[in-house]
């Protein structure tokens, strides 16, 4: 796609999306981080559906300047083909009048260079944000981890004051993002004290997946997750936080 057309498309989608969000007023839950975003997003969506809420989450990689508005509007992508974009441009505007717009949007946010988060947050204002995990391994065009962290700081600062900021306590950099939050902070992780956050305990691999316990103050839950990998336990912990907070 030519840069000129891409720029026009980007701003068209941005303003249509802002209008749609203004009209329908969904609650937005943003999920960010360098890994485990997708599984956390899916877990939150699952919990909301179990609670009988209507939800839309971004499919696959629809988490950037073009993809995020498409995910919110519930339309596909034309990728690199101009003619494939024509019906999508029409469908995008029809989202204004849709009667079945969901109550919740669970949106994975992807950042690959400085300023990406600011752009995405010029479209949405989250009620709740979750920072799943941040690693040094995937910095893309950032000069270093500090610059990447500034993106997440921006998200934490711009989450609604009345909302929640949910942070992975086990990652020191993420834990320190709490200082920037104006909203209530909720931690999860293996090393967080159970008085301060949702503590993951006794992770064990079974023949059928992972099992673990979640402890928070007087709450204690045993989880059996039919997936393999500790990251699923972290995603499930976010799910428990959602069950308790929505």
């Amino acid at each position, binding site marked *: 796609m030519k840069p000129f057309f891409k720029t026009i498309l980007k701003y068209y989608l941005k303003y249509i999306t802002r209008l749609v969000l203004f009209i329908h007023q969904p609650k937005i839950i943003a999920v960010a981080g*360098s*890994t*485990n975003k*997708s599984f956390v997003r899916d877990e939150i969506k699952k919990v909301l559906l179990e609670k009988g809420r209507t939800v839309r989450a971004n499919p*696959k*990689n629809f988490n950037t300047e073009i993809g995020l508005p498409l995910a919110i509007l519930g339309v596909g*992508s034309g*990728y*690199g083909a101009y003619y494939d974009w024509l019906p999508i441009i029409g469908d995008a505007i029809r989202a204004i009048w849709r009667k079945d717009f969901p109550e919740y949007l669970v949106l994975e946010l992807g950042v*690959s*260079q400085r300023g990406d988060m600011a752009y995405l947050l010029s479209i949405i204002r989250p009620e709740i944000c979750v920072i799943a995990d941040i*690693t040094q*391994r*995937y*910095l*893309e*065009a950032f000069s270093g981890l500090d610059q990447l962290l500034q993106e997440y700081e921006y998200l934490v600062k711009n989450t609604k004051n009345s909302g929640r900021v949910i942070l992975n306590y086990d990652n020191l950099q993420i834990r320190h993002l709490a200082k920037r939050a104006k909203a209530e902070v909720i931690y999860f992780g293996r090393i967080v004290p159970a008085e301060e956050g949702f503590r993951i305990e006794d992770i064990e691999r079974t*023949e*059928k*997946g992972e099992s673990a316990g979640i402890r928070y103050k007087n709450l204690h839950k045993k989880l059996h997750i*039919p*997936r*393999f*990998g*500790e*990251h699923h336990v972290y995603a499930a912990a976010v799910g428990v936080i959602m069950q308790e907070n929505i």
Partner: protein
Amino acid sequence: MAGTGHCPVPAGENILYYIYMFERTKNLKLSVIKQMEIRAAKFPNTISLAQGVPSFDTPKCIKRRVELALRQGVVAKYSLSPGIAELRELIEVKLAEQNMFYDFEKEILVTAGSIEGITATILAITDPGDEVIIPEPTYTSYREVIILAGVTPVYVSLSEDKGWAFELEEYEKAITPRTKAIFYCNPNNPTGTIYSKEQLLGLAELAEKHNLYLISDEVYKDFIFENGQSIFSLAEMPELRRRVIRLFSFSKSYAMTGWRTGYLHSDESIVQEILKVHDCLVTCAPVISQYAAMGALEMGDKDVKFFNHEYEKRRDLICARLDKLSHIFSYVRPESAYYVFPRIIKKDMKLDDYDCPDSFSWRFALHLLEKTQVAVVPGVAFGPSGENHIRISFGRSEKDINCAFDRLDKLFL
């Protein structure tokens, strides 16, 4: 120079030194497919239906992802040995869509094409002197990798009469105390067969009974030509995760043969051992290709569907053209991949003496090449049961297929 039978020995050198050289490689052969390509290159105007290369270029969405990675300057350095974490996470998501649940941190390994994954797997799970059972006819390079590892390939024939299906009792007979694994390709190259769930579960039972690994090469799994048909993988069964090592390549599904990237997955206890070999062999898969693979998983679904549709049309075309030559060939209609593996039923043809192994399918393939400049692969390359067959690829365009069969028609009709 004196000769040792293996290599020329410079005058004055110790001949014993040379006798013991190349012990590891002396029994390896250059793949027959590549040999045919080399022979075909000597003829002007050859149409090659030999090598399994898609006629399509890599989809644009994948190239754009690579261009972005290049612009961002993230491709010049090694990745982690198992691969870029975000790619492995995407692979985990993709696998979960297919009912396979593996941990991207510890159980998914990005490889330099599936052949590197196969090599690392065989080297990790076997010891010299072991045996690996291969259903045949099957992909030619399995044999070479197994021999390279000092392991003996044991062929078990597929049943052509039953549409190239497994005959489980034959596997039971082939198992010895040295057997370490059964290594199959599903859908199978060169026959285009999709093994049924029942057949695969039978194989799994045998593996449980005799404590064997099952290596499942599923590089053609995205191509299914019959409506409603699906490909079952033993890697879907949690109780088999310590037995099954499943391999996939981006080469065929996403027209990325030149990028050399694929992946394997299994239980952590196995993958962590394979990882050590992978690290010795390549350190990591090419990073630029890993970004291409990310593009493929993020945006390539539409292209895979398009390729599948095109290959289905080509399968129908090639079968129609083979039907016209029914006095020469009989065949089992392929359900997947992009090969057809016809039996040569007319055996009384006068074929010249070619400089090739003593095999009818070899001489027939060279006869076609010389008389029509159409390159195909002699069936014997895929195992003893492949003799009297040829493999024809329909990875090439419809125009090439029609042109090649026009030439065959001229020869045979």
